């Protein structure tokens, strides 16, 4: 606390670890600095120690830089955890989780070398001056702009091709087989006087089967051929052949005799014309 600005030192035993983050070009740069300070061999980074130092270094981050550094902090912590996982000795497939980090550090180190080279080249070039004084250019008409229709059209195509095609919800017409369902139900009615909804559906019904069967049932009920009842709430309803007196829920409004309308629109219409639920029950 006596020295106001201790030099940039890595964390030895001292907690007074001061790193001027402005001096670094990002988390990789900081990481390289820490490795060098500690004279660490990149092939064998003590992740736990470096992760702690990294966290300590970024403690006082300004918000605008925070994201980049915090992401690296997250990676380091995950690495630290991975290194703690037990692994069998001599395990074949074990890949050092630090590998990716090392690759990135080497790549970044290379970029820094390249940047240094570019900087020296730019410095050398800056030693040579171009002509300094440039008289105002003579008054010339601005050179004609090259613009032709073909280019414009190409640009239009370019733009058009980049407009994402709208994701349209595709509606596939899957015709309901109400007639088939009706035949199946009629066969069932021949056999048995009463069966349940689940039995009517048969094994593994598709949604189309289910809808077809439901429509067929409603149609049969409308024609007065069956009675439908649900003994109590939330149980499968039962379907009963309507030969004797109706004792379950009577279907109103339809004479139980032979109907002149063999198949109403609901029986053959595709799904789009599915009548509203009330329509069958309440034809009035």
């Amino acid at each position, binding site marked *: 606390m006596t020295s106001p600005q201790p030099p940039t030192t890595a964390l030895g035993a001292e907690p007074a670890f001061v790193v001027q983050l402005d001096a670094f070009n990002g988390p990789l740069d900081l990481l390289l600095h820490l490795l060098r300070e500690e004279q660490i061999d990149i092939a064998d980074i003590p992740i736990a120690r470096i992760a702690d130092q990294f966290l300590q270094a970024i403690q006082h981050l300004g918000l605008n830089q925070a994201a980049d550094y915090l992401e690296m902090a997250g990676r380091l912590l995950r690495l630290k955890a991975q290194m703690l996982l037990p692994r069998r000795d001599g395990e074949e497939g074990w890949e050092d989780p630090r590998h990716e980090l090392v690759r990135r550090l080497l790549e970044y180190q290379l970029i820094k070398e390249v940047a240094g080279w570019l900087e020296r080249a730019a410095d050398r070039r800056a030693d040579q*001056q*171009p*002509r*300094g*004084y*440039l*008289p105002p*250019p*003579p008054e*010339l008409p601005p*050179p*004609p*702009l*090259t*613009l*032709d*229709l073909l*280019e*414009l*059209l*190409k*640009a*239009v*195509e*370019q*733009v*058009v*091709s*980049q*407009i994402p*095609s*709208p*994701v*349209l919800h595709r509606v596939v017409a899957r015709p309901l087989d109400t007639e088939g369902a009706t035949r199946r139900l009629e066969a069932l009615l021949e056999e048995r006087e009463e069966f349940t909804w689940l039995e009517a559906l048969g094994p593994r019904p598709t949604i189309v089967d289910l809808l077809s069967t439901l429509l067929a049932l409603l149609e049969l009920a409308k024609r007065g051929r069956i009675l439908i009842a649900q003994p109590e709430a939330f149980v499968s309803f039962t379907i009963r052949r309507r030969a004797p007196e109706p004792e379950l829920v009577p279907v109103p409004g339809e004479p139980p005799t032979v109907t002149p309308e063999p198949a109403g629109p609901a029986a053959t219409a595709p799904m789009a014309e599915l009548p509203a639920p009330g329509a069958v029950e309440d034809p009035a």
Partner: protein
Amino acid sequence: MKPLAQLIEAALFAANRPITVEELQTLEPDASLADVRTALEELREHYDFDGHAVEVLELAGGYQILTRRAFAEAIERAQFAVRTPRLTAAAMETLSVIAYRQPVGRAEIEEIRGVSAGGVLRSLQERGLIEVVGRSEAMGRPLLYGTTPLFLELLGLRDLGELPRTDEFTVALQPHKPDTADSDEAAASVPAES
């Protein structure tokens, strides 16, 4: 050339204004003003006798190296050699959106091109290819852009009606399979509707 003449040549070449004899003297503190004048004379003679295209001129109280008047025309032509400015791809695309959607606001242009359009719009406006034609009634009353007569002139069009209809393009605007690269053949074989 003597070292002082060399120094002066470098300084005059690099300087962005006429330089006085006194300023030139600061290049070589050991040299007198007379030395500087002598060196300037040496440089001037060198340029003259060797038939250089540049000369040392006394101007505005100082000295400058300038091209000789005889080469004015050549220099002008050299300026012409600056590649005729072409619109960048970004400018072209923006222009095409405006041509076909005008009047159109910046937000819509950016929506279609997927990138911000501020700089491009400004430069198209400076080149006189587009102009503000009104304001939208939408929130914030954004500016609406349209093309100018210069745009038509450059394209050699009588009016905007001469722009091809978009359904004449190979990339049809009609909905088509999103993932097949069908544009060319499809457009060639299927006649456009309407």
